[in-house]
C-alpha cells in the first residue's frame, strides 16, 4: 500500500480522493464534442467506398447539390487544388484525405457533404453518385507478400512496407542449436478496435478575417495536432499562432483518438471554404470501419531452454498487417513500437525479433487499443510460450516463471534486446496472486476434475510493461521529443491553477495531478484547479496515451512544484528574516531550524509573492517544467485466471480473475484500481469476444456493435485486485503509470487458462478471441464434446 503522508484536508499522494470531474458528468453537463453548437454551424457527413479496392470513374454531385439544405460537396479534386488531398502519417507514409483516383479499403472516405443539419447531410451523402471500377483486393498480409498478389500501392515497389529486426540473430541461433528443448507456435493476434463509446469528431471554425482556426477535436494530443496542422497547411497561409486546438471532454480514447483522421481535415477544409463552423461526428460504423485498429500481428514464436526449466533464448518472426498505409502512431524510431520488450519478465540471455510491415486493402492504424506501442503483442508472445514450454517439460507454469524471473537484485536490468528495466520484484507479485487465488488448491481441484472429465484451466500472465515514452534521446513523434509539461501558478490567496500538455480521457487528471502538487507544496488538492487540452493556454506536451501521463507530466508536476518551493524558500527567508539555509520545509510551510513556531505557510508566502516580495526578486509564484524522463518505467504484475469450459457448448467461463499490479507509488488508489478494472475488461474483450473480421474481398463483417462484441456487465468477470509497490527509482515520486498494464497482461492469462484446460488433450495454442465455436471444434477434434 502507498501510505498517505498528508492529512485528509490536503489530499496528497495516497488518498483515494473523490473525483473532481464527476460533478459535471453526473449531471449531464459534460462538454463532449457533439455537445458543442455554434451559430451558423454546418454539418459534414462523408460518402464512403463500398469496395475494398476500386478505381473511381466518376463522382456526380448533381443530385446531392439539388437537395435542399446541401451547400457543398467536397471531393479529392477539390482538395487537390489546395494540395491537401493527401497527408503525411506519423510513420512518414502517405494517407489520402480524399481520393482522386482509387480507394484502398471499404468505407474509405470518398467525398464530404456539407449541409445545414445532420439529417440533410445524410440525405446529401445518399445522393452523391459514384461510379467505381472494382479492382482485386488483398486482405491477408501473407498472401500480400506472395508473388503476383494484387498491389495495394501504385507508388510503392511492393506490398512489403519495411523489414525491422532487433537483437543478435547469430547468438540466438546458437542458443537454439544448443538448447535441450525448443518449442514453437504460430500465434495470431487479430485486428481489434478500440471502440470508445464516444466516436471521433470535431468542430472546425475558420475566421476568414483574422485567418484564425479554432479546432475542437476529440484528440489525445492537442499540441502535436496544432503543430501538424500548421506544418501541412503552411502553404495555405495557416500559421501556428493562429491555430487553436481544443480537446474538450473525451468520451474514452485508448489510443483511438491519437491519429489524424481524414474527417478532421475535411472539416477544416470545409470551414475554410465556407467561412462557417463545420461539425463532423462519426457514426459507429464509420468509427469501426475507418478509424485506427490495433494488433493484426501474425507471429511465429520460438522459445529455447533446458530440461530443468531454464529459459535461454527467444526468437519471433512477425508479419504485421498495417492496412493500406503505415499510419501506426508509434514513436518515429520504432516501426514495430516497443515490441522488443518481448523478453518480458524473464532472464533471457539471447533474443532476436523481426517484423515485416505489410500493406493490405484495409484501413490503417496499428496500435490503438490501450497497448503502449505493441506491448500486448510482446506480452502475449512470451507469456503464451512460457506456458507452452512449462507444460512441455512438465513443470508447473508458476514454478517455471519463478525460476526464470529477473531477480530483484538484478535491477536495473539490461535486457537481451537492450532495454534497461528500472525496478521490479516479479516473484513477489506472482506469489501474492497465487495466495489470493489459492493456487495450490486450484491445481488439486483441477486434477480431480480432470479425472472426472471436467475441463478446468488455470492461466498465469506475469507481464512486464514499458511505458512513459519517453527519453528524448530515443523518443520523438515527427521529430518532436516526447517530453511532457506542467505549468503551475500560485495565486495570491494561496490557491493555484496547473496546466498540462497531456489530455485526460477518463483517467481523472483533474483529480490526481492536483494530488501530486498538494503533496509537494502542501496546498490542499481542492485548492488546485487542473486544466488541459487548450493549446492557447496549456504548455506544450505530447499528450496522453501509452500510459505516459504520470511518468512524464506527473513528474513535471512534481518538478514544477519543487521549483515553486525553491522560490517560496527565498520569500520565506525574507519574511522570517532568516537565512535560507536555516529554513526547514515541512509540508505546507517553512520554519526556522530550532524554532518551529517561527514559520510561514505556503499561503503566507504566496500572498507575499504578490504583496511583499524581496527587492530584486520578480513578483509572482509560478513555474513550468518540461520533463524529459531519464528512462522509461516498467510497471509489472501477475494475473491468474481460472476458467471452466462447457463441453456441451465450448463456452469459456472465467470463474476467477486475480490481478496483482505493481505500478510503483499509487497517487490515488481508487483511480488506479479503476484504471486496472477497465484495463482488465479491455484485456478480457479481445481474449474472448472482439475481432474485426473481413471477408476475402475486403468486406468488413463487423461494422457495428451487434457484430463487434464489446463485453457487457454479464460476461465481464468480477475482478479481484491486489498490489505490490516497487517504486520507480528515477521518477520524482516513484510512480510508473498504470493505464494499460491490465489490457497488456490479461489476454495471455485467459488464453493460458483455456489451453491449460485442454493441454492434456493435445491442444497447444488457441488464437484469441477464444470463441465457443473455436473451442467446440477442438472438443470435437479431441473427442470430448458432449451432445446436450
Amino acid at each position: 500500500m502507498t501510505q498517505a503522508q498528508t492529512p485528509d484536508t490536503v489530499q496528497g499522494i495516497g488518498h483515494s480522493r473523490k473525483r473532481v470531474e464527476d460533478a459535471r458528468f453526473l449531471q449531464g453537463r459534460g462538454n463532449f464534442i457533439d455537445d458543442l453548437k455554434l451559430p451558423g454551424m454546418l454539418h459534414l457527413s462523408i460518402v464512403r467506398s463500398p469496395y475494398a479496392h476500386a478505381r473511381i470513374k466518376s463522382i456526380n454531385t448533381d443530385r446531392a447539390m439539388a437537395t435542399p439544405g446541401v451547400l457543398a460537396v467536397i471531393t479529392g479534386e477539390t482538395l487537390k487544388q489546395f494540395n491537401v488531398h493527401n497527408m503525411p502519417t506519423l510513420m512518414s507514409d502517405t494517407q489520402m484525405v480524399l481520393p482522386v483516383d482509387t480507394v484502398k479499403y471499404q468505407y474509405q472516405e470518398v467525398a464530404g457533404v456539407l449541409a445545414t443539419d445532420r439529417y440533410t447531410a445524410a440525405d446529401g451523402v445518399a445522393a452523391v453518385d459514384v461510379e467505381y471500377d472494382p479492382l482485386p483486393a488483398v486482405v491477408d498480409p501473407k498472401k500480400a507478400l506472395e508473388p503476383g498478389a494484387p498491389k495495394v500501392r501504385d507508388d510503392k515497389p511492393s506490398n512489403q512496407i519495411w523489414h525491422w529486426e532487433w537483437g543478435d540473430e547469430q547468438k540466438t541461433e546458437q542458443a537454439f542449436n544448443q538448447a535441450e528443448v525448443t518449442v514453437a507456435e504460430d500465434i495470431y493476434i487479430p485486428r481489434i478496435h478500440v471502440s470508445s463509446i464516444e466516436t471521433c469528431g470535431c468542430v472546425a471554425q475558420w475566421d476568414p478575417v483574422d485567418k484564425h482556426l479554432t479546432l475542437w477535436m476529440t484528440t489525445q494530443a492537442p499540441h502535436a495536432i496544432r503543430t501538424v496542422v500548421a506544418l501541412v497547411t503552411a502553404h495555405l497561409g495557416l500559421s501556428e499562432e493562429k491555430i487553436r486546438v481544443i480537446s474538450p471532454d473525451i468520451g474514452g480514447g485508448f489510443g483511438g483518438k491519437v491519429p489524424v483522421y481524414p474527417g478532421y481535415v475535411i472539416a477544416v477544409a470545409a470551414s475554410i471554404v465556407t467561412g462557417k463552423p463545420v461539425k463532423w461526428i462519426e457514426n459507429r460504423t464509420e468509427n469501426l470501419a475507418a478509424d485506427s485498429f490495433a494488433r493484426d500481428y501474425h507471429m511465429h514464436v520460438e522459445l529455447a531452454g533446458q530440461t530443468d526449466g531454464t529459459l535461454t533464448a527467444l526468437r519471433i518472426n512477425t508479419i504485421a498487417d498495417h492496412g493500406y498505409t503505415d499510419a501506426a502512431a508509434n514513436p518515429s524510431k520504432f516501426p514495430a513500437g516497443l515490441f522488443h520488450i518481448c523478453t518480458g519478465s524473464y532472464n533471457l540471455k539471447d533474443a532476436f525479433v523481426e517484423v515485416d510491415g505489410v500493406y493490405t486493402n484495409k484501413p490503417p492504424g496499428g496500435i490503438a487499443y490501450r497497448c503502449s506501442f505493441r506491448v500486448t503483442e510482446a506480452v502475449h508472445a512470451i507469456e503464451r510460450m512460457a506456458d507452452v514450454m512449462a507444460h512441455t517439460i512438465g513443470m508447473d507454469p508458476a514454478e517455471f516463471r519463478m525460476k526464470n524471473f529477473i531477480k530483484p537484485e538484478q535491477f536495473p536490468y539490461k535486457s537481451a534486446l537492450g532495454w534497461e528495466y528500472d525496478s521490479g520484484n516479479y516473484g513477489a507479485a506472482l506469489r501474492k496472486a497465487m495466495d489470493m487465488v489459492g493456487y495450490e488448491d486450484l491445481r488439486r481441484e483441477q486434477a480431480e476434475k480432470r479425472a472426472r472429465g471436467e475441463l478446468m484451466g488455470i492461466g498465469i500472465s506475469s507481464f512486464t510493461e514499458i511505458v512513459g515514452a519517453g527519453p528524448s534521446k530515443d523518443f520523438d513523434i515527427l521529430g518532436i521529443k516526447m517530453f511532457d509539461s506542467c505549468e503551475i501558478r500560485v495565486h495570491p490567496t494561496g490557491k493555484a491553477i496547473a496546466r498540462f500538455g497531456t489530455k485526460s480521457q477518463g483517467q481523472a487528471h483533474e483529480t490526481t495531478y492536483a494530488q501530486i502538487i498538494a503533496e509537494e507544496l502542501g496546498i490542499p488538492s481542492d485548492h488546485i484547479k487542473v486544466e488541459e487540452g487548450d493549446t492557447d493556454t496549456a504548455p506544450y506536451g505530447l499528450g496522453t496515451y501509452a500510459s505516459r501521463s504520470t511518468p512524464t507530466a506527473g513528474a513535471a508536476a512534481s518538478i514544477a512544484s519543487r521549483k515553486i518551493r525553491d522560490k517560496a524558500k527565498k520569500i520565506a527567508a525574507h519574511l522570517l528574516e532568516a537565512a535560507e539555509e536555516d529554513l526547514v520545509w515541512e509540508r505546507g510551510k517553512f520554519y526556522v531550524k530550532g524554532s518551529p513556531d517561527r514559520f510561514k505557510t505556503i499561503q503566507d508566502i504566496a500572498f507575499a509573492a504578490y504583496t511583499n516580495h524581496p527587492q530584486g526578486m520578480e513578483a509572482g509564484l509560478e513555474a513550468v517544467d518540461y520533463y524529459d524522463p531519464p528512462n522509461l518505467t516498467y510497471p509489472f504484475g501477475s494475473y491468474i485466471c481460472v476458467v471452466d469450459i462447457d463441453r456441451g457448448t465450448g463456452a469459456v467461463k472465467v470463474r476467477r480473475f486475480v490481478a496483482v499490479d505493481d505500478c510503483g507509488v499509487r497517487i490515488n488508489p481508487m483511480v488506479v484500481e479503476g484504471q486496472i478494472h477497465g484495463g482488465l475488461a479491455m484485456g478480457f474483450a479481445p481474449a474472448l469476444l472482439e475481432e474485426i473480421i473481413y471477408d476475402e474481398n475486403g468486406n468488413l463483417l463487423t461494422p457495428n456493435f451487434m457484430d463487434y462484441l464489446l463485453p457487457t456487465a454479464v460476461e465481464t468477470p468480477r475482478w479481484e485486485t491486489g498490489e505490490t509497490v516497487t517504486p520507480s527509482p528515477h521518477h520524482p515520486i516513484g510512480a510508473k503509470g498504470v493505464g494499460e498494464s491490465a489490457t497488456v497482461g490479461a489476454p495471455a492469462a485467459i488464453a493460458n487458462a483455456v489451453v491449460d484446460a485442454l493441454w492434456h488433450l493435445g491442444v497447444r495454442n488457441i488464437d484469441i478471441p477464444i470463441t465457443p465455436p473455436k473451442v467446440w471444434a477442438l472438443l470435437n477434434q479431441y473427442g470430448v464434446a458432449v451432445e446436450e
Partner: protein
Amino acid sequence: MNTHKITMTVNGQTVEADVEPRMLLVHFLREKLNLTGTHIGCDTTSCGACTVQLNGTPVKSCTVLAVQADGGVVNTVEGLAQNGQYHPIQEGFREMHGLQCGFCTPGMMITAVSLLEQNPDPTEDEIRWGISGNLCRCTGYVNIVKAIQYAGEKMRAQNAVPQANAEVHP
C-alpha cells in the same frame, strides 16, 4: 419536409416543438432542447448511452422517434438531481468511482434508476443483467455494480425513513 407538432413533459417541464417525422428522440432532446447529457454511442440500440425514461420505462432514445414520444413523459440525466441534491444513483456513482470518461454514465444511471424502481433490492446478477444493454468501455463494470448497490441501499432507506440526500457538488 413536413413537420409535426409534438408536446411532451421532459424532466417535469412541458415542451412543444415542430419536428420532422424522422427526427430521433435523442436528437430532439440534444439539439432542440439542448439537453446534451444524453449521448449517442452506436446507432444500433446496442450501447445504451442514449437511454432515457419514457413513461417510466427505460428506452434507447436513438431508436425512438420524437413523434412516438408525443404526449409522453421523458426523464433524462438532467432531471436526476432535485432541489440541488444528488439522486442516490449520482451519489453512488461518485462514491464508488462508477464512472471514468463519463460518456456512458447518464444512460447507465437512467437504466439503473429504472431497475431499482422495479426491483428495489436486486442481487448482483440481477444488476448485471439489468445493465447489460448499456456498454461501458472504461470501468470494467465492478464499480458500476457497487454504485447501483449503494443507490439501492440508499433508496430503500429513504423509502423507509425520509432523509436528506447529499448536496450537489458544484
